[in-house]
C-alpha cells in the first residue's frame, strides 16, 4: 500500500513539522486484551455499589421495567451502527422508525408535530425557549420554580449565551405553581415564553389552567409544558388540552436505562405554527420516483449545515438510538401496557406516601395530587435522614434542600412499577428507626 501511495514508510505518511512531534510518551491506559478489559470493568462495576441499595430515587431519571425485546431489536447492527439517514434510499427502516417516534410523541402530547429528538429534557427546554424567543423577538422568559432545578440550570447556561432574562414564578403551599401574579406579569408583554412542568419537581401534577394559557397566548407569550417523566403522558391530560403550544421533555422512561445520566432522550412537540422554528432533525413521508411510500429527512434548510450562523439552532445530532429504543418500547407496551404501567406508578406512590406518612414525624409536604413521586417532610435535615437510610442499604430519595433552601427538611421519594410493597415496608421500618433516633437525640 505504501508503494502504491509512493512513500517509503508510515512515518513519512504521517509526518508533521518538527515542533509538533511528541516530546514525551503519552500517559494513557495499558493495552489490554478483551478478557482483561472485561475484568477491569468488572472492577469498576464492583466499586459501583448503588445496585445493592433499595432505591427511591427519581427526579428526572426513572427506573422502569424494560422488556428484553427492546434491547434485542435495538441492538441489531443495522440500527446500532447506522449513520444519520442522509442516504434515505438505504435508511428507509430507520427513517420509518423515527417517523413512528415522531407520531408517538405527537399522539402522547396531543400536539401537531414532534422532531426526531434532542439531547435530553433540559436541553429540549432550552431549545424550546429559543423557538419562543425567535417567534416573538422578546428576550425574557417566565419559568415556574417548580420546574426541575437542573432544567432551569441549563436554561440559565443557554440564557447567558443568548443574553436572555429568566424570571421565576413561585410555587404555592400545595406544591403547584403560583399563578396569582400572572396577569400582571404577562400584561407588559415582555415574556417570550411561560414555562411550567407537570408533574413538577415535587411530583405534583401541575398543568396551567386553560384560562391562564389563554391569557398567555393573548399576550403573545408561548406556553411551554415540560414533562420530565414521559410515562405520565399515558395517564394525565395532554399538554395540548390545557394549552401548551410547545411540549418538551425527557423520554428516558420509555425503554432507556438511567445509565448515570445518559444518554437519555429529549423530545420537542409543538403546534403547527412553530414547525418552521423547530430545531433538529425531522423525518417526513413522501414518495419515490415510482410513487412508492418513502421517508426522508425534511425541512433541512432550517438546520445548521445549511443555514450556518442563521440556523434555528446549532443542534446536529439527535438521540436516534435512544428514540428507537423508546419507539420499540412504546410499540411493545401498547396502550394497555402503558396505561397499566402509569396506573401502577400512581398506585405504588400512593402506597409509598401512605406508609411513610404513617411514621411519626413524617408528612406529605404538599397536598396536591402527585404522579410517581412525593415530597416528604422529615424530622430534622433531609440529608441526615438520607445518610441514616444509606446505613440501612436504602437510597431514600433526593434531598430537595440541595436546590431549595426552604426545603432542607424535605425528601423527594419516587416509586415506580418496580417498587414492591416489601421495599416500601422496609423504607417505612427504617424511617421509624431514624425517627426514634432523632427524637432520642432531642
Amino acid at each position: 500500500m505504501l508503494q502504491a501511495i509512493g512513500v517509503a514508510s508510515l512515518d513519512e505518511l504521517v509526518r508533521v513539522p518538527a515542533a509538533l512531534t511528541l516530546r514525551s510518551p503519552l500517559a494513557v491506559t495499558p493495552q489490554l486484551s478483551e478478557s482483561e478489559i472485561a475484568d477491569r470493568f468488572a472492577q469498576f462495576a464492583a466499586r459501583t455499589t448503588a445496585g445493592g441499595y433499595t432505591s427511591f430515587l427519581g427526579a428526572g431519571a426513572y427506573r422502569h421495567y424494560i422488556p428484553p425485546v427492546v434491547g434485542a431489536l435495538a441492538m441489531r447492527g443495522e440500527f446500532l451502527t447506522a449513520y444519520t439517514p442522509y442516504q434515505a434510499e438505504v435508511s428507509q427502516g430507520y427513517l420509518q422508525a423515527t417517523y413512528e417516534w415522531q407520531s408517538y410523541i405527537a399522539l402522547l402530547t396531543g400536539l401537531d408535530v414532534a422532531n426526531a429528538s434532542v439531547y435530553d429534557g433540559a436541553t429540549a427546554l432550552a431549545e424550546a425557549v429559543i423557538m419562543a424567543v425567535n417567534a416573538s423577538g422578546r428576550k425574557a422568559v417566565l419559568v415556574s420554580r417548580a420546574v426541575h432545578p437542573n432544567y432551569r440550570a441549563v436554561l440559565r447556561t443557554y440564557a447567558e449565551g443568548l443574553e436572555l432574562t429568566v424570571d421565576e414564578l413561585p410555587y404555592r403551599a400545595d406544591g403547584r405553581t403560583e399563578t396569582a401574579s400572572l396577569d400582571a406579569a404577562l400584561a407588559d408583554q415582555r415574556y417570550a415564553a411561560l414555562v411550567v412542568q407537570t408533574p413538577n419537581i415535587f411530583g405534583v401534577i401541575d398543568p396551567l389552567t386553560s384560562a391562564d394559557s389563554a391569557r398567555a397566548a393573548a399576550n403573545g407569550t408561548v406556553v411551554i409544558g415540560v414533562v420530565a417523566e414521559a410515562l405520565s403522558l399515558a395517564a394525565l391530560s395532554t399538554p395540548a388540552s390545557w394549552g401548551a403550544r410547545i411540549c418538551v421533555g425527557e423520554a428516558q422512561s420509555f425503554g432507556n436505562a438511567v445509565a448515570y445520566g445518559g444518554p437519555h432522550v429529549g423530545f420537542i412537540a409543538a403546534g403547527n405554527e412553530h414547525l418552521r422554528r423547530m430545531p433538529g432533525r425531522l423525518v417526513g413521508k413522501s414518495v419515490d420516483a415510482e410513487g412508492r411510500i418513502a421517508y426522508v429527512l425534511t425541512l433541512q434548510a432550517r438546520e445548521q449545515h445549511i443555514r450556518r450562523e442563521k440556523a434555528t439552532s446549532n443542534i446536529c445530532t439527535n438521540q436516534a438510538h435512544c428514540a428507537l429504543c423508546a419507539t420499540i418500547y412504546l410499540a411493545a407496551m401498547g396502550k394497555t401496557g402503558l396505561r397499566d404501567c402509569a396506573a401502577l406508578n400512581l398506585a405504588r406512590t400512593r402506597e409509598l406516601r401512605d406508609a411513610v406518612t404513617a411514621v411519626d414525624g413524617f408528612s406529605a409536604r404538599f397536598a396536591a395530587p402527585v404522579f410517581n413521586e412525593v415530597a416528604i417532610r422529615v424530622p430534622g435535615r433531609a440529608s441526615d435522614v438520607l445518610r441514616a437510610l444509606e446505613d440501612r442499604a436504602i437510597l431514600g430519595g433526593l434531598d430537595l434542600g440541595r436546590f431549595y433552601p426552604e426545603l432542607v427538611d424535605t425528601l423527594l421519594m419516587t416509586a415506580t412499577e418496580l417498587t414492591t410493597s416489601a421495599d416500601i415496608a422496609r423504607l417505612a421500618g427504617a424511617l421509624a428507626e431514624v425517627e426514634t433516633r432523632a427524637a432520642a437525640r432531642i
Partner: protein
Amino acid sequence: MPPPAFDTPLIFECGQDGRANCYLPRGPQLETLLPGDLVRDELPLPDNSELDVVRHFTRLSHKTFGIDTVFYPLGSCTMKYNPRINDAMANLPALRDLHPFAPDHAAQGALAVMWELERALASLFGMAAFSLNPAAGAHAELTALLIAKAYFAKRGEAHRNVVIVPDTAHGTNPASAAMVGFRVLSLKSDARGRVDPAALAAVAGPDTAVCMMTNPNTLGLFEDRIGEVSDVIHRAGALMYYDGANANALMGNTRPGDMGFDLMHLNLHKTFSIPHGGGGAGAGPVGVAPALVPYLPVPVVRAYEADGSPAAADGWRDSTGLRFALDFTAPDAVGTMRSFWSNFAHMVRALAYIYANGAEGLILTSQLAVLNANYIRVGIADVVDIPYPEINRHEFVASAQSLKRDTGVRALDLGKALLDRGYHAPTVYFPLIVPECLMIEPTETESKETLDAFIAAFREIVAAARIDPESALGTPRTTPVGRIDETRAARQPDLRWRAPSTESG
C-alpha cells in the same frame, strides 16, 4: 442479502385490541387514583403482539445500512468498526442502572471511569483537563464558546465578540457561535486549501474572541503552518479552538495542545468507536488549556488520595485506591449543559476502547487511517478530479466536476450508484469550497481487500457512466425505494401518522 420486497406498514396501522403483551401486572383504573379532570380521555396507541413488534422492527432493520453490513467511506464521519465489548461493558448492570442522584460513595466505579477517561484524553490531546458534560459535538462547541465568553468577561474583555471560522469549517461552527452572541467572520483558505497566517493576521484584532479550526481540515489536509496561525491569534489576545471532528487523523501522533489550541472538543462517537446509532446519541467532551480550567461546566469529577489530599495526575493514572466526588460548586464554571452529568454509557465505551488499544494502538490507529485514505486516493486519482493532489490525512476530497462536464453525471449520482453496489455513499457537496465534491474517509478498520473492492467498484461506475451516463443517473435501483421526492416532503410536510377518521378534520 437483498432488501426484502415486502412493505412495512406503520406500527399504527397494525395491531388491534386484545393483543397486548403481559409485561406488567394489570394496574387499577386511573379514575380510582386521580381526580377525573387530571386524567386524559383516550390513549390512541395500538396494541401489538410481541411477534408483530419483532417482525416489524426486524424488517425495518433490513431496510437500513449500517457499518455491520456495508463499508461507509463517509468523509468527516469516521465510521469505524464499533467493537461489541464496548457495548457489553456499558451494559453491566451496576453501571447501566446507576441513578445519577446516587450518592458519590455508591458510584465510585462510575466516577473512576469518568476520571480515567478524562485524564487519558488530556494526555492524548495535550490539554490540561476535559469535561465530559456536553452531549455531542455541536453541544461541545457551544460549551467551549460559553467558556471563551466567560473567560473574556472575567478579564474585562467582553467586547471580544468575533469568531473567525475558515471556509472549510463544519456548519455547526458558525451556528454555535451565533448561539453565544458572537459574530462570525469567514476566512477564505489559500490556494493550498489551508489557512494563510498572513490573511488571518489581517483580520484578527482586538475584537477577535476565538478562531475555530480543525486540523487536518475538512479537505483532509494538514494545516502545516498551524504554529504560526496560533501565534497570530494569541498575539491578538484571542483563543484557538480545535474542532475534534477530524481527531482520528492525528490521535497520539501530534497533539492540539502542542499546536497552540486553547480549547477543543472530541466527537467520541467518531474517534473512540462509539456506535453512531443512526445519528445519536453522541458525546462531546471539551478540553481546555490551564487558564480555562476554572470555566469548565459542572459537575467536575474530583479525585482524592486515600489520605484525602487531591490526587495529582498528568495524564491517565490507575484509579484503584483513589476516592471520587462530583463537584457542583466551581465558582467560575459556565454552568451545566444538560440534565445529568454526561452521556455516561458512552464514556464506558470510550474508555474500553482506550484500554483495548493503549498508547501504541491509538497511535497506529490514526496512522492506518491515513494509510487507508491515501490508498483510496491513488486508486481513483485517474478517474476523478483530485483538487489537492498531495498526501492527505485520514480523508481526502475528490471532485466529479470533469465527469459532470463530460457526461452530466454528478457527485450525487456517483454516491447513489455506490449504494447499488453495496457501499454507503461518500459525503457529497461538503466542504462547500470544492464543486461536485466527494469526501472519502475509510477509517483504519477496513481491510485492504475491502478498499480494493471499493476502488474497483468506484472505477467501474465511473467507466460505465462515461459510456452511458444513464447507468449512474437513475441509481439506486436495487434499494427498497429509489430517489425520493424531497420537494414534496418539504412543501407538504407529513411528519406524523394520524388516525384515518381524523384525517378529514
